[in-house]
C-alpha cells in the first residue's frame, strides 16, 4: 500500500509527510483529538490530559536522552522547577497564566543548563549519577526552602492566576485544549528540530561525541543547548500541571517521576518523537487499566485494595524489563514493523 514511492523533486523529498497514507493518518488523528472532548466523559478527559502532559515531558526527555545520548535521572526535579516556578510566579508576583508558563519553562531551561555543565566532562554512568545528584539537591531545596516553596506543604495557586482577558481557564475540558495545543506545538517543534543543524548536531553527539567535535560541533554549546531544550519542555509540563491542578506538592516530582519518564521513552522508543507519545500514552493507560481491573476483583479478593499498588509497581518493573529484553526499540519499532508488514500487503514476498 505504501510501496513504490519515488521522489522527483527536492520539495517532495524534504516533505514532512510523504505518502497519502501518512497524511490520512495525520488527519484522522487530528480529527480524533478534535472530536474526543465532545464524546468522552470526565474520566477519559482526565486521562487524555495526563497523556498530553506526559507526552510533552517525554518528548523533552527524549531530546536529551534519546537524541543527544545524555542520560538524565533528574527530570522529575526539573519538572518541579517548572511547577514551583509557575506557582511562585503566580502567587508572589501575581503573574497571569500566559506569562507564568513561558517564564517557568525558560527558568527550567536555565536550571537544566546549569545542571548540564557536568555533562561536559562526564559520560554514561557517571553523568547519570550526576543528574541523580541534581534530583536530590533540587528535591532537598524544595522541601527545605520553606519561605519560598512552602516546604513539604502543598503549594496552592491563586485562583485568579488562571484568568486570561476576563475568562477563567479551569476544568478538564478547557485544559484539554490548552494541553493538546502545547503538545501539538512540542511535537511539531521537535520533529522539525532534527531536520536542522542543531538537531543533527545533537544526533552526532549521541553517536560519537569525539568525532562530532572533530567535525566542528561545539560540544560545550550543543550539550548545554540539549539540556536547556529538554528542560524547557519538561518545565512546560511542570508549569502546565501546576495551573491545571491548581495545587502542587514535592511528592509528585521525586526520583520516581524521573524513572517513570525514562520508562516512557524506553517503552516508546529512544530517539523517536512519535515513540515518546506512544510511551506516554502507554504509561498513563496501563496503570489506569490495572486499577480498573483490580476494582473488578475487589469483591472476590478482599486483599486486592492493599495489593493493588504493589501489583502496579511489579508490572511497571516487568514491563520495563520485558521491553528492554524483547523489544529494545520500543513501541515505535512495533508500529514500524506493522506498517512495513502492510506496505506490500497482501503480496509480500
Amino acid at each position: 500500500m505504501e510501496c513504490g514511492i519515488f521522489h522527483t523533486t527536492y520539495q517532495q523529498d524534504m516533505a514532512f509527510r510523504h505518502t497519502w497514507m501518512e497524511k490520512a493518518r495525520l488527519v484522522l488523528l487530528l480529527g480524533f483529538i478534535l472530536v474526543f472532548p465532545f464524546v468522552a466523559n470526565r474520566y477519559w478527559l482526565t486521562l487524555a490530559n495526563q497523556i498530553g502532559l506526559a507526552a510533552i515531558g517525554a518528548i523533552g526527555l527524549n531530546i536529551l536522552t534519546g537524541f543527544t545520548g545524555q542520560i538524565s535521572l533528574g527530570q522529575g526535579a526539573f519538572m518541579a522547577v517548572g511547577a514551583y516556578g509557575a506557582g511562585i510566579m503566580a502567587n508572589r508576583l501575581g503573574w497571569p497564566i500566559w506569562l507564568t508558563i513561558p517564564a517557568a519553562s525558560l527558568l527550567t531551561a536555565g536550571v537544566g543548563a546549569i545542571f548540564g555543565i557536568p555533562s561536559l566532562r562526564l559520560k554514561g554512568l557517571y553523568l547519570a549519577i550526576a543528574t541523580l545528584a541534581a534530583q536530590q539537591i533540587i528535591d532537598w531545596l524544595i522541601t527545605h526552602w520553606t519561605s519560598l516553596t512552602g516546604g513539604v506543604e502543598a503549594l496552592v495557586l491563586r485562583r485568579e492566576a488562571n484568568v486570561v482577558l476576563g475568562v477563567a481557564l479551569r476544568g478538564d475540558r478547557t485544559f484539554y485544549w490548552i494541553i493538546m495545543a502545547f503538545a501539538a506545538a512540542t511535537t511539531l517543534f521537535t520533529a522539525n528540530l532534527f531536520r536542522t543543524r542543531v538537531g543533527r548536531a545533537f544526533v552526532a553527539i549521541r553517536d560519537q561525541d569525539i568525532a562530532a567535535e572533530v567535525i566542528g560541533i561545539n560540544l560545550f554549546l550543543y550539550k548545554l543547548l540539549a539540556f536547556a531544550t529538554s528542560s524547557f519542555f519538561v518545565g512546560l509540563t511542570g508549569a502546565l500541571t501546576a495551573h491545571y491542578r491548581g495545587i502542587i506538592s514535592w511528592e509528585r516530582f521525586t526520583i520516581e517521576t524521573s524513572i517513570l519518564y525514562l520508562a516512557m521513552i524506553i517503552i516508546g522508543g529512544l530517539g523517536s518523537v512519535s515513540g515518546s507519545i506512544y510511551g506516554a500514552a502507554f504509561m498513563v493507560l496501563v496503570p489506569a487499566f490495572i486499577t480498573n481491573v483490580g476494582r473488578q476483583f475487589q469483591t472476590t479478593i478482599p486483599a486486592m485494595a492493599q495489593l493493588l499498588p504493589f501489583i502496579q509497581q511489579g508490572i511497571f518493573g516487568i514491563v520495563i524489563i520485558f521491553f528492554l529484553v524483547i523489544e529494545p526499540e520500543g513501541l515505535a519499532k512495533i508500529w514500524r514493523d506493522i506498517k512495513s508488514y502492510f506496505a506490500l500487503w497482501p503480496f509480500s514476498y
Partner: protein
Amino acid sequence: MEKLVQLTVSGLTNGAIYALVALGFVLIYKSSDVLNFAQGELLLFGAYLTFFFVAQQGLIWPLGVLLTLVVAVFIGVLIERFVLRPLIGEPIISMIMVTIGLSSLLKAIVNAIWGPVPREFPPFIPSHEVYLGTAVVGMDRLLAIVIALILLGLFSLFFRYSREGIAMRAIADDQQAALSMGISVRRVFAVSWSIAAATAAVGGVMVANIVGVSGDVSGVGLRVFPVVILGGLDSIPGAILGGAIIGLLEAYTGGYIGQGLSQVIPFIVLVLILMVRPYGLFGQEIIERV
C-alpha cells in the same frame, strides 16, 4: 573535642555500612560494567529473608543467615540469567533501566509478601554500647566495620589470586579477548552476581539491625551512589575509603551545621568531585578513541 571524637566514630561506623553496601556495586561493575540500581532491593531481600527465617520460622540465627545467603545467591543467579544476560552489549541506558525495572519488581514482591508495615529485626546481633575513649558506639556498628574490613580483604585476595577473580578482571578489561582465552563469560557473570547478592544480603542484615525491617533498608542503596562514584566505580579500596569519607562528611555536617543539610551534602560533594575527577578517586580512567 569530645564532640569531634564522637562524630568521627559515628561517621566512620556509618561509613563502614556504606562501604559494605558499596562493595556489592563495585563487584558487579568490575566484572560486567553494570551499575546495579537494584542493589538496595537486594539488601531489602536479605533483610526480609533473615527476618522470615529467624523471626517467623524460629530458626536459630546462624542457620537463618546461612539460608538467607543461599537464597540470595540463587536470586543473584536468576537475575543474571534472565535479565542481564540478554542485554550483554546493549547501551548503558538499557543497563540502567533494566536494573531500575528490576528494583521496582523486587520491591513489589517484598511488599506483596510481607506488607509495607515495618517489622522489628530479630535481635541476635549484640548492640550494647561500647566506650572507645570518650566516644560511645554500638557493638553492631563496630561489627559492621569488622565485616566490611574482612570482606575487603577477602575480595582483594579474590581478585588478585583466585582463578575466578582474575577471569573477572579479564572480562571487565576486554570481553572478546577474555572469550578467546577460553573464559566462560556467562559463568563468571553468574558467579559475580551471586557473590554480589550474598554481600548485599549481609549488608541488608546489618542495615536492618539498625533501621528495622522496612522499605527504608533499600533507601540505603540510593545513598550509596555518592560513595561508589567518589571512590571510583571499579575500585574496592575506593569503596571503603569513599564510605569513610561520605560517612564522616555526613556526621560532621550533621553535628556542626545542621541535621537537614547532612542528607544533601554527599550529593553536592559528589557533583564537585565529578567536575574535578570524572572517574572518582581510584577509578580507572578510560582513554577513548574514535
